[in-house]
């Protein structure tokens, strides 16, 4: 009972934080892009434009909800949920801190420290593609359909590299539990100086993972499913009001989960070099949560930064990159890691 209550509270907090963060990542994207482009960005709505997300959300809720006659209604209605829910679910196994003493209880700062955490993430992220494809197909619009088709091909292709890139990490960690992965990174060093983050002893995996994650979240240079200049709005072209907002939120929720995963898997999660990982005093626990938040925020910034800097790939180029470069690279990484482990046995 206690466990259920604890989990429920954690879920509520995490969901609340993510949804709020989504709103402010949207604002951050508008602000950061503005600074990159010598503009000011939103600054009229509330101080520094801070109320902009609120206004946008409220507007979307109050907007007429058009369901075109020519759509497949049931699927059309399910699709926005089918994309937003998996994007949020991924966060369930991400440890956003170590442990925290709350009213005399030691609370693990993770919703569910599942034994198959990594597998769960791969499974949930595969579900995301359904929302895109179904949305594109049910809209009965050629642009949306093409967006959906592009998305399915792209996301399925990159899932492979995504999964394979993690094998090297798992071989070293010898566990699918994300808390184990983080704990391992928090102990020891690489080459005596660097922290034992997997970015340092699995650099190839890190690279492949990051590129694949960009493709999975449909962000530039991989934003083909909605490529504004080609497919107008892609798979969500026919969606209006809150349903469109859900697609919009899903993209950013995806980004947050992805950033959190990069931080957790390759950049030590809540670990800060120089801080004793076993010390679980209240102040240090809070500090660890903050460290994790900062790392996640940094990768969110990278997502935004890349989007406003590079051009877009073409469909076949995306496929070529995925199958001809990333996949062999991921396999090579598995091979190298295996060799290393065998020789050091």
């Amino acid at each position: 009972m206690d466990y259920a209550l604890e989990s429920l509270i954690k879920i509520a907090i995490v969901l609340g934080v993510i949804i709020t963060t989504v709103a402010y990542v949207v604002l951050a994207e508008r602000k950061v892009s503005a600074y990159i482009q010598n503009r000011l960005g939103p600054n009229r709505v509330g101080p520094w434009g801070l109320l902009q997300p609120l206004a946008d959300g409220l507007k979307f809720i109050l907007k007429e909800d058009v369901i075109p006659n020519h759509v497949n209604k049931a699927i059309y209605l399910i699709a926005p949920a089918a994309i937003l829910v998996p994007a949020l679910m991924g966060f369930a196994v991400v440890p956003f801190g170590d442990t925290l003493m709350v009213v005399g209880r030691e609370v693990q700062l993770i919703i569910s420290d599942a034994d198959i955490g990594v597998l769960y993430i791969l499974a949930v992220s595969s579900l995301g593609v359904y929302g895109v494809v179904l949305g594109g197909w049910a809209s009965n619009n050629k642009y949306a359909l093409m967006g959906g088709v592009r998305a399915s091909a792209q996301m399925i292709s990159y899932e492979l590299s995504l999964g394979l890139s993690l094998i090297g990490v798992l071989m070293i960690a010898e566990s699918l539990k994300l808390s184990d992965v983080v704990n391992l990174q928090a102990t020891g060093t690489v080459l005596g100086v660097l922290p034992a983050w997997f970015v340092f002893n699995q650099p190839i995996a890190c690279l492949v993972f990051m590129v694949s994650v960009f493709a999975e979240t449909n962000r530039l240079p991989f934003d083909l499913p909605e490529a504004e200049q080609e497919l107008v709005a892609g798979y969500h072209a026919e969606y209006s009001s809150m349903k469109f907002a859900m697609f919009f939120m899903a993209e950013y929720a995806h980004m947050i989960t992805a950033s959190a995963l990069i931080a957790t898997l390759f950049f030590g999660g809540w670990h800060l070099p120089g801080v004793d990982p076993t010390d679980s005093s209240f102040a240090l626990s809070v500090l660890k949560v903050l460290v994790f938040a900062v790392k996640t925020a940094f990768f969110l910034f990278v997502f935004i930064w890349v989007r406003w800097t590079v051009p877009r790939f073409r469909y076949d180029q995306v496929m070529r990159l995925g199958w001809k470069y990333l996949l062999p690279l991921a396999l090579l990484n598995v091979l190298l890691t295996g060799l290393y482990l065998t020789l050091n046995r």
Partner: protein
Amino acid sequence: MAEESAEAIETEPAEEAPEEIGDPAARALKDRFPDEVLEVSETRGETTVVCAKSRIRDILTLLKDEPRLSFDRLSDVSAVDYTSYPGHEPDTPRFNVVYNLYSHPNNQRLRLRAQVTEDACTIPSVTSIHRGAEWAEREVFDMFGIRFDGHPDLRRILMPLNFEHYPLRKDYPVRGMGERDVIAPEDPGFLGNPYAGEEEEVDDPLGSERMVLNLGPQHPATHGTLRLTLELDGERIVRCIPDIGYLHTGFEKLGEHHTYNQYVTVTDRMNYLSPLCNNIAYSMSVERLMDLEVPERALYIRTILWELSRIADHMVWLGTHALDIGAFTVFLYTFEQRERCYNIFELVTGARLTTSYTRIGGLGWDVPDNFREVVLDFVAQFPAAVEEVERLLTRNRIWIDRTKDIGVISAEDAINWNMSGPMLRGSGVEYDIRKQEPFLVYPDLDFDVPVGKHGDTYDRYLVRMEELRQSQRIIEQALDKLPDGPVKVGDAKVILPEKGEVDFGMESLIHHFKVLMDGHGLTPELGEAYVPTESPNGELGFYVVSDGTGYAYRMRVRSPSFMNYQAYPQMVNGHMISDAIAVLGSVNVIAGELDR
């Protein structure tokens, strides 16, 4: 029967054959087609051959294939309705189809006018000789109702398919016959489906289904009003049919209803990326028609503004091209530079975009005193901005992958399709009107003409980027050489006197009246003139026919976008949708200029 009688009439004027034909091409034509060539005139440095329509194909073939002549580019096809022209008899042919030819090897121009009667309103199509005639002939059909025998696709091009009149005929009123007030927006046929009635079975052994995708006219990549109908096999384009005319404004008809100076205002709005080029190109044609010698200071100022316009134009091209390929930030960087150009235009002309700065015979007024410093300030900071964009794109792997070997067009095809400007130079043809047929003060200035090698989107990108640097060189030199003096011709019969003089001087007041009165002031003699210019997009020129009044009798605009865009289907066939967007960006179609 009607055909025969027309022939009989046409041969009549041939009796008064000109004594001496100086132009070798015209002489060769007279020798080879003595019966068809009716009249040869050489005025204002332009050669015009009037001929019968029956063997127009043979004439153009000879002109193209004869090595001595090799008129390999048909720069324009248009028509003139002579119904109310002075001296026009009811029994002489009503229309003339006008062919404007250019020879790349000999750097020569020749104008052919073929006579067409109203009863037998057809003429052989020359698309089999010059493919670039395709759209121009369609436009003549659309506007005048002249049918082209043997044309592969003779449909209306600018007006809606169900439009019933021929707007450029003299008997059609400029304000229309009520079509613009009673549009039935619910009429689906009005949109015009190029596939209507064409349900052909596609021969496809794999049995895969093809999809027809309608792109535009309101699509983010079309920057306005282009429409493409794409037949797709997956993402690959099997067939592409462009549909234009969504911004048809009636510029050419308006030219017949505005006095020469009034029309300057209208030209602003044609290529809205570089309005000053339109102003200047138009004024030059009328000035040639009137034999006006524009003062040197005005020429220099025009040159500086021309190159600034090129920079401003290329800035929008670069921004939107990058935007189409997904690099949004470049768009905002280039617009910043454009804003700086706007500052200069506003300083000089008083307006950011619709400048209306030129007058026939010079400029509206002189540039302000700080013009030199302001322009120098601009050119000083400009290279850094170009470099910044180059760092983002030129060696960016994605950019190269997206543009290299995309939308390739060979030099031969480019000429045959009647391309000009950076499109032609990207294919390796070193043709820049500023060098070949110099206008303004370009002969006095030192600059290079960049050419590409492969004719792909990347080369066109490089060519335009290099042009930006050359423009900067030209501006610097022209500023150094900028002479003092007046900026308008001294002829009081043509140019409005200064306001101060009008208030106090009797003579000036009289001139002021006369210039503005109908039938006085700007009234060129009977005749025609065409001055080709190198606008940022390519060959821009106004073909003006005068009937001796203060209004042009016919105003034809040879716009680069219209001609460059027609080869688009050939450039994108077999490519993917994303490539089609990239190529569209590199063609830089300006809808206002395309549809006029």
